[in-house]
């Protein structure tokens, strides 16, 4: 309350960084909508067992391939219809948010942490370490993403965890290259020399001083990396190389219902729509994040 009153009566004080960020972010309508949808999806994922009307794997033998409520013969009992085994599609979609977000966030976290450490190591040690790591990353980038993921899954076997490993390997080079390039730039700056003169150790110098100054592009990359990972994992699921039944994963659901595309089109339409909405909203929010964090990076 006091804050609001103060804001009204006194001349505008310089905005705090977080306030400045928010007002820049809110200017972007697409980003705001994207963030709201992402928040809703996160809500669904957390409270899936409360929100979902049925269990995602319970088979209602009396209602196999029931149409959704907007089609002739649809009922509110299965608002989005059921699949070929009589499982409620709405519940599977809601529980699917858990799977997709879990994949997206774990891929992002693991590749972020390892990518950052490898990138910093390249910049800090140079020479042999740098060449070795850069070569390996070049190699990973030379193999088309999905093909590499397929190779990794072929080695590890198709399941949820190995999907995450496969997609993480694919996205690792992005972080390594980003951190390496910005850290090398920062190392030339005077504040780094000053910190060195002041006796800051190598580990602290890299992890605190340098890393904090290359964080902005990394955060943006991480946000957009979540949506890419979700898309890639869904593609693997669609090819039968991702999460295995009965897990309610959107890509796997699509693949399972492919044969009913003529007779029961909603089984194909809805899971794909769920993927598209999730990925679009994360991308919109991520674009907004980039524009708000660093106007220089703005894609005009």
């Amino acid at each position, binding site marked *: 309350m006091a804050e609001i009153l103060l804001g009204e009566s006194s001349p505008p004080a310089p905005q705090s960084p977080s306030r400045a960020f928010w007002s820049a972010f809110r200017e972007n309508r697409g980003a705001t909508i994207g963030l709201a949808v992402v928040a809703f999806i996160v809500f669904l994922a957390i409270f899936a067992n409360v929100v979902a009307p049925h269990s995602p794997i319970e088979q209602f033998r009396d209602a196999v391939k029931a149409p959704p409520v907007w089609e002739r013969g649809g009922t509110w009992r299965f608002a989005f219809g059921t699949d070929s085994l009589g499982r409620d599609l709405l519940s599977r979609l809601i529980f699917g948010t858990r799977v997709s977000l879990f994949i997206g966030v774990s891929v992002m976290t693991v590749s972020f942490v390892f990518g950052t450490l490898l990138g910093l190591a390249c910049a800090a040690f140079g020479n042999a370490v740098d060449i070795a790591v850069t070569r390996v990353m070049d190699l990973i980038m030379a*193999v*088309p993403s999905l093909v590499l993921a397929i190779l990794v899954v*072929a080695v590890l076997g198709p399941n949820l965890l190995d999907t995450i490993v496969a997609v993480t390997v694919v996205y690792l080079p992005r972080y390594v290259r980003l951190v390496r390039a910005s850290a090398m730039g920062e190392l030339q700056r005077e504040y780094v020399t000053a910190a060195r003169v002041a006796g800051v150790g190598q580990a602290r110098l890299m992890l605190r001083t340098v890393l904090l100054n290359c964080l902005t592009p990394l955060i943006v990359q991480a946000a957009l990396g979540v*949506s890419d990972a979700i898309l890639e994992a869904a593609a693997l699921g669609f*090819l039968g190389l991702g999460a295995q039944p009965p897990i309610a994963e959107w890509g796997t659901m699509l693949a399972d219902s492919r044969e009913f*595309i003529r007779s029961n089109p909603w089984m194909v339409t809805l899971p794909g729509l769920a993927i598209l909405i999730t990925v679009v909203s994360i991308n919109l929010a991520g674009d907004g994040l980039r524009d708000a964090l660093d106007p220089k990076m703005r894609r005009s």
Partner: protein
Amino acid sequence: MLKFLFKRALLTIPTFFALMFLTFAAIRLVPGDPVEVRVGEHGISPERLAQFRHELGLDQPIWLQFWHYVVQLCHGDFGTSVATNRPVLTEFITLFPATLELGFFAMALATLVGLPTGTIAAVKRGTWFDQLLIGVSVAGYSMPIFWWGLLLIMFVGERWGWTPVSGRIDLINYYYEPKTGFMVIDAWLSGQAGAVRDALRHLILPAIVLGTVPLAVIARMTRSAMLEVLSEDYVRTARAKGLPAWRVFGVHAMRNALIPVITVIGLQVGTLLAGAVLTETIFSWPGIGKWLIESINRRDYPSLQGGIMLISAMVIAVNVLVDLLYGVVNPRIRHG
């Protein structure tokens, strides 16, 4: 120029070695025995099994197997498919034109639509067209293309019956020996009435599906590259001296805006090959993407190994080409 090309090519050699090691090591770690897959699970004597292993060289030490693998690769021998008993390179060369044809049409679509729409959006910045393009390109970039393909099959192919939904040509009405492997050209060479049209009709949906992501990326990149160039003095000069709009935007501005766009188009080649795996699977398109997936399911190690090697080699080669193209488009970064 030649010197640069040479240096650039030399730099890719360690990458190739690492690639060989990666594919070799990865494939050895795959669970499942290729010999058992080949002979089936029952009714074979241990002696026959040992003989098969010997024929495939699977009874030798791993390091020796790798050495043989490298030597073979250097002789252009990518192994023999365990499933079909044909050389992997032959299979690849037979199937690759299908993927190339599809990729060419997808990329042509993406470029021919992406460049003009991106340019118009930049020139008419802030209008409804601009807003629409931004919205559509985010959706296109985020599109799960396997779903997009199924939707198109469902509506355009099945419900409205406008286009065929699988394969490269109607095999009942048209049959001819492949000469080039490119269905459109083969159809034209065969001289059969309506064959070219049929081949093109088969290409429409797969090309749209495969071209969607590159189209979104190219349109958006063109827009932002154009916006940057449009505020330059030389563009204002060109307009001031009364040149027609298409010349100012399409020639003067485009030439400089193209540099980042070409990079992006080059980078899309990897995306395109990854997308081909999905697109070909959906449309039963007999190219290398579908072949790779089939190889995994058949545990056909040599095919998978050779296929990934060849695909990656192509991506590396295209990256070198893109580097060279910069010089052609922009003399300022021409390599001495």
